[in-house]
């Protein structure tokens, strides 16, 4: 091996060794081929746990029921019983500690998500009572006349008229 022609090869070998040594410092120990094989499981195992401990924001209606049983019971008897509380009240997060109260989304846009009348003859949407948002009291909040927790088709004015007729 006395010939000078091998010198570039030594340098190449040194560079490769350098990369391998760098690996011990720069690559985490739990990085490797895991359960799903090399093609689908080549990763840092610790990341799976990192995803599992992400903060839970939506606690689900079951959580709300623990304290607000009366509301959930009465809602359950209406067509809006199928809607998750947090859809309109926002994520519970750590309520009642933080936040102490939840917001109520009274915007028109929220109700129009389901109740804007669209041309959808072959979809489940056709079974929902809808209005034309451009002509049915545009600009007004739906909750001025309709109670989301008691959403019978009768509006408040109709309800008052009905009561006064008794």
């Amino acid at each position, binding site marked *: 091996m006395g010939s*000078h*022609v091998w*010198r570039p*090869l030594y*340098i*190449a070998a040194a*560079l490769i060794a350098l990369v391998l040594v760098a690996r011990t410092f720069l*690559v985490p120990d739990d990085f490797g081929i895991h359960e799903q094989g090399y*093609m689908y499981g*080549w990763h840092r195992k610790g990341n799976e746990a990192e995803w599992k401990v992400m903060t839970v924001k939506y606690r689900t209606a079951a959580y709300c029921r623990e304290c607000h049983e009366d509301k959930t019971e009465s809602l359950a008897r209406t067509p809006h019983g199928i809607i998750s509380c947090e859809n309109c009240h926002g994520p519970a997060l750590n309520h009642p500690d933080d936040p102490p109260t939840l917001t109520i989304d009274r915007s028109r846009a929220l109700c129009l998500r389901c109740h804007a009348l669209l041309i959808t003859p072959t979809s489940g949407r056709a079974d929902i009572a809808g209005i034309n948002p451009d002509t049915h009291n545009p600009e007004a909040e739906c909750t001025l006349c309709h109670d989301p927790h008691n959403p019978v088709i009768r509006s408040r004015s109709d309800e008052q008229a009905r009561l006064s007729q008794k």
Partner: protein
Amino acid sequence: MVHGEAWTLKELFVYPNEYIYWTIQIVMYPFMTGLVAGAFVLSSLYHVFGIKELKDIARFSLVFSFALLPVAMVPLQLHLQHPERGIEVMLTPHFTSAIAAFGIAFSTYGMIVATELWFVYRKHFVETAQALRAKRDKSLPERGQYFLFSALTLGAWDISAQALAKDEKGVKIMATAGIPVACLLHGYAGFIFGSVKANALWTTPLMPFIFICSAVVSGIALCVLSYIVTMEIRKLMVTWKRKSDPSLPTPEEIRTVEMFEVTMTARYLVLALLAALGLELLDLLFRDYAKFHSWEIVRTLIYGKDFVNVFVIQYGLGNLVPLVLFLLPGLTVRRAVVATLLVLMGVFMMRWNLVIGGQAFSASFAGFMHYELPVIPHDIETFKEGLIGAILVGIMPFVFFWGLIKIFPVFRCEDSH
């Protein structure tokens, strides 16, 4: 703004998360690596196949290939959302991905070119270092030069005929080994696109071969063009300097060599061009014949919005016109310059039509996206992935080349192998 939103316009139905993610830098990358591979193959035509007529341009293209090499990394670093993690491709490579092959291909190729350069220039390093050592009073830059050239000899000071013969053998081995690695370097770039089954335009087994052929085309064209430019400059300088140094070659002598090299090299360029063109047309014809489901939207694109880009600029001006210019008898330097410029533009447009064109239609096959290349940057992203960033990448190899020829001279090489 999410990444891609600033330069993407959506038409009809495009999936909400779809934007043009691979932009001008991803066009520049295969263009630059193509030049690298092509320049090396040209150099090897002399060193391996002993085509002596190409000796003059061979040394030039080897050094140019080395100047292009570091530049090939730059578009990728500019494109990555986390460029500081780019080294992970070498540290935790996932070889099921074609991009991971980049680490291996790039390093191997770099080491081969560096080794070949060392064998070619070792005598020059030794002689320069010895001449500097003999000098009594060295200025500071001269001391630096002495240190640099001494280090570059790697301690191998023997320049006897025996040692030089070993160098020559080394050059031949490296040039031979380098050809498949240069093919790998650009072939894998073709594989990166060709293996994406989700993209209707990119997916074809022919892509690695199309890329290799057009890489050779672009490399040869760039070397011919640069060679002509430097020869013309030399002619001017020699006319001016000949008054004081009559041993310099005459402009006429330079011109003869120049024309010879250009004519010989042009033959290989034409061959590679025909191969690349043949494969690309085969791909289109095949899809049309077999009426693949994805072909409909691709056809709407290339016959509609992209017609000028694909058929007029790329195939017409970039392939057909240069072919005619090279094949017509009586090739002149001026015609060669026009033809090589058109070829380079054609190869660039091929990369553009592939990368941008492949994202010009939605994966839904029911909508289109339009790419607005950012010209005036207004934030770091539109700088990195816009025209300014691309131009920066384009001029870098010439800057490196200018620096490299101070260590690896490419002219007046009577002592070359």
